[in-house]
């Protein structure tokens, strides 16, 4: 995994795993690799991976089962909620950046629509 050195590593690992859950690479109820294996997979420190997992456990997306490991939650509602959260965060960024360019809400909507149409035609 290529990390952005400016952003806390645990946060990037968290987002990486959330991404895998939302896209379905990791399924509800699926067991996660061991902490050390995850550390090797993403080339990070075991403690940093552990911190990322703790954050996800607190958020209720990962469940830690004593002696058995970590599992993706079976509650699909929670995963849906997570998806909404991540989408909102992305939208908020775009919205703020476009506002900073003095675009009104209507103008943002129009340019987004135009952009999507163009991208759709390009495919």
């Amino acid at each position, binding site marked *: 995994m290529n990390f952005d*050195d*400016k*952003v*806390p590593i645990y946060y990037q690992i968290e987002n990486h795993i959330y991404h895998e859950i939302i896209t379905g690479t990791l399924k509800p109820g699926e067991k996660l690799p061991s902490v*050390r294996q995850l550390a090797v997979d993403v080339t*990070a*420190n*075991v403690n*940093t991976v552990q*911190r990322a997992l703790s954050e996800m456990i607190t958020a209720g997306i990962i469940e830690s089962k004593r002696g058995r490991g970590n599992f993706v939650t079976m509650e699909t509602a929670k995963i849906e909620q997570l998806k909404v959260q991540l989408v909102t965060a992305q939208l908020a960024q775009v919205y703020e950046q476009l506002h900073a360019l003095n675009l009104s809400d209507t103008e943002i909507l129009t340019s987004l629509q135009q952009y999507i149409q163009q991208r759709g035609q390009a495919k």
Partner: protein
Amino acid sequence: MTDSLSMQNVTYKRGMKTILHDVDLTLAPGKIVGLLGENGAGKTTLMRLITGSAKGKGTTMVNGAAAEADRKRYVSFSEQLRGFAGGTKLVKIVAFYETVYGDFEADRFAELADFLQIDTSLKLAALSKGMKEKLVIALTLARRTTLYLLDEPFSGIDSMSRKKIINSIIQWKPENATMVISDHYVSEIAPILDEIVVVKDQTIYTHRKADEVREEFNIGIEAYYESLYERGNDND
């Protein structure tokens, strides 16, 4: 739990010249720590003070032990194998390590050698720089101990070897062991560090958690490290 390393008021002079002064450094178990500083800042000296091969004033304890013999037992230092003749076969070096260090695990070495693709039938002089560094890493990590000191393991080696070495560190560092990795080029190891220690102005200039630096300043470890030098040098 006992600290892996505890140094208090350590000062080291060579002749009239102060190399390091008032070093206070405590490292908790289970961490990977980047020891950063310019060439000649005193990183290797600090490691030699920890192993006991350099003798300074002050207290140094490894895993709670202050006596030099005990410290040597709890520290695995990446020796550069200068004591071996070029014609020595690697199997002989491995056998030597096994005899000298009671905590050297032959099967651990075999796993590491396999992972790093080290051919132990070769002679020391036949190894490329990268391969020799891999051998040093395998020998250092094959001991199962408390504190590992890797002195510039990435200097002058290609990126593939570097990645392999970083992976072997993640895979083979015992959970509660602490590892200190010195480097003057930070970006390659930044993602695997728990903490950074900067040696500057002949002392420990700063000691921080890596993710705290990123959260607090919104900059990378390398940029943070460089910013310490931009503030102006207060060298004597």
